[in-house]
């Protein structure tokens, strides 16, 4: 049976199992599965998927749910966590919550499970107000996730709360199934004047194929500050489609850093919607991949209100036969006067076989705006290489230093020092060097 049919036929059985208190959810799920049924998996014929084909991975016979509750020892996966800082943790193994690895809270804020939030009456008001409100109803993969939405992280921060501990959301795949597809669903609501830092990661622990179709909705209320980090350094058999939707109210600041260092196919759909004035949105990314890996960044910033800013900065280094895509869309509505939208995308190709498809898209309907975009594709600067070699730094290390320097505009704004150091170590490791100091 093809995966699409398998998913549709699993849907009824799935719904029967859930003890929903909320009849609205049934309708949301039903119309979502219908949309997926109509549209199916996206193909390269669609403009938005022109450069990313899912065909090869859809041939795997994915299980739609893991059969067993699987456990892993903390020692095995310790390296995927932040270790020197205290954090809240919402951890999943093969799509199921692991209470053993998690550290949740209801003390002044909720950091817990989506499945609780969706099924328990006390969360109903928040769910009714936010769940599936900003996620696309049209996009077929988001609909697929909505139809099967049950498990994931639920974060609700009341007003005027500075969350001291970062929140880690990690999805592990153990490979207990020959091939597994999961539909993680996260909901993050950050109240007025509140601050939070979140790190999200998807990690396979063996080489059985995985397809993760994740949806995250983030709501930032007035003057909220949200810093969200996505660490994508997965195995070559792991595929990730990340759909993130962010709604921002007046004076809020939201930044998303996406570090794409590994995986087979990674697609990041990152969407920002402005719902107030003086909003600041930051989208930054570093992609360093090789072999035949593929990373596609598909961003949208919808400027709908006046006096808002958006800053995009994506750096890509492609080795071997790797392929990269950057499709960055800035939409400035007629009302969005005094918009300041900035987009920068720099790419380095280390071989003749590596490919980048870069496509900035600016659609501007307001007349008093500042929009700029720059895109470069190049090789490493020979003059800089000579400079470093002249100081005695061998070619390989010099290359690595230069590539590190190339990405530093993105790493410099990571606000969690341990995460910053971790990213630097992953970069050094990717580049195959040990510089003798933390880059």
């Amino acid at each position, binding site marked *: 049976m093809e995966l699409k049919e398998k998913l549709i036929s699993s849907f009824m059985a799935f719904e029967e199992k859930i003890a929903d208190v909320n009849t609205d959810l049934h309708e949301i799920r039903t119309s979502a599965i219908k949309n997926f049924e109509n549209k199916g998996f996206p193909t390269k014929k669609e403009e938005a998927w022109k450069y990313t084909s899912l065909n090869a991975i859809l041939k795997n016979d994915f299980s739609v749910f893991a059969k067993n509750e699987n456990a892993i020892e903390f020692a095995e996966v310790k390296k995927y966590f932040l270790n020197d800082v205290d954090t809240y943790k919402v951890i999943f193994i093969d799509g199921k919550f692991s209470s053993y690895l998690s550290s949740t809270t209801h003390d002044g804020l909720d950091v817990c499970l989506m499945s609780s939030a969706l099924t328990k009456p006390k969360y109903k008001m928040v769910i009714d107000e936010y769940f599936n409100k900003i996620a696309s109803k049209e996009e077929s993969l988001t609909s697929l996730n909505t139809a099967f939405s049950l498990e994931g992280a639920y974060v609700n921060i009341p007003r005027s709360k500075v969350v001291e501990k970062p929140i880690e959301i990690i999805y592990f795949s153990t490979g207990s199934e020959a091939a597994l597809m999961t539909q993680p669903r996260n909901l993050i609501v950050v109240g007025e004047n509140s601050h939070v830092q979140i790190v999200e990661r998807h990690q396979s622990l063996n080489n059985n194929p995985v397809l993760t179709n994740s949806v995250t909705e983030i709501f930032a209320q007035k003057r909220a500050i949200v810093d969200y980090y996505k660490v994508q350094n997965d195995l070559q058999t792991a595929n990730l489609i990340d759909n993130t939707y962010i709604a921002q109210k007046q004076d809020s600041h939201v930044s998303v850093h996406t570090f794409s260092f590994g995986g087979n196919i990674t697609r990041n759909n990152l969407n920002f919607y402005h719902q107030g004035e003086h909003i600041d949105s930051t989208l930054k990314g570093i992609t360093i991949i090789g072999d035949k890996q593929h990373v596609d960044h598909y961003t949208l910033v919808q400027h709908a209100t006046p006096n808002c800013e958006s800053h995009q900065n994506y750096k890509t280094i492609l080795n071997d036969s790797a392929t990269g895509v950057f499709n960055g869309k800035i939409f400035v509505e007629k009302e969005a006067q005094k918009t300041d939208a900035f987009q920068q995308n720099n790419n380095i190709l280390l071989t003749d076989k590596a490919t980048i498809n870069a496509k900035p898209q600016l659609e501007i309907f307001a007349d008093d705006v500042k929009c700029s975009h720059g895109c470069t594709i190049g090789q490493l600067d020979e003059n800089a290489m000579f400079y470093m070699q*002249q100081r005695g730094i061998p070619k390989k290390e010099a290359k690595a*230093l230069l590539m590190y320097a190339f990405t530093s505009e993105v790493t410099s704004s990571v606000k969690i020092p341990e995460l910053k150091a971790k990213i630097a170590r992953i970069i050094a490791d990717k580049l195959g060097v040990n510089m003798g*100091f933390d880059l």
Partner: protein
Amino acid sequence: MLQIKNLHASVEDKDILKGINLEIKAGEVHAIMGPNGAGKSTLSSIIAGNENYEVSEGEIFLDGEEISELAPEERAHKGVFLSFQYPVEIPGVSVTNFIKTAINEKRKANKQEEMPANEMLKLIREKSELLEMDRKFLSRSLNEGFSGGEKKRNEIFQMAMLEPKIAILDETDSGLDIDALRIVANGVNKLKNENNAVLVITHYQRLLDYIVPDFVHVLMDGKIVKSGDASLALELEEKGYDWIKAEIQ
């Protein structure tokens, strides 16, 4: 120390050096002057091993060893230093981390242990004081946002840290105000001893007031057309290069 014999070089099939002969002994300061486009910077790049230039003929010896086939970093490890006319900016890597890496790579190549951290710190403090550099400067990203003077001072700081046998200063005076020029020259003079040598490449005589050369060579159209002592530089400053052109013809 440095011997250059009949050096010919080209870039993209254009001949730039057309038979250079030069011998620099330990303890000496040489200056190469010449009009724009004479090949001065090409010569310094080639000594340091820039692979964009092709050496078609001739040899370069450092302490009797032929080095023209060596990679730039290998030459650096053997004691060649080139102070760049346009030092490169490397964001995200501090001055301190860069120089630590450079020193330890050199030590590794020469089969020495890494320099102990306290020794490194002491050396950095000592040499940065010599160049009158601010402490804060050392933690800034290498050359990023540095003024022209800061960049050149940082070059000489690296030279002081690396203690090369032969230091080539390529247009080090360009973009320097008089104070920076004095500091840079003072640094070079303090580092100078009977076991190393300095080659100053310059368009103007100004720097040579501070770093007084034992020999001055005039490079024109890819050849050294005239050599003399420090007074030659003054003569060039006064009369320009045209009289030499006339003299050759």
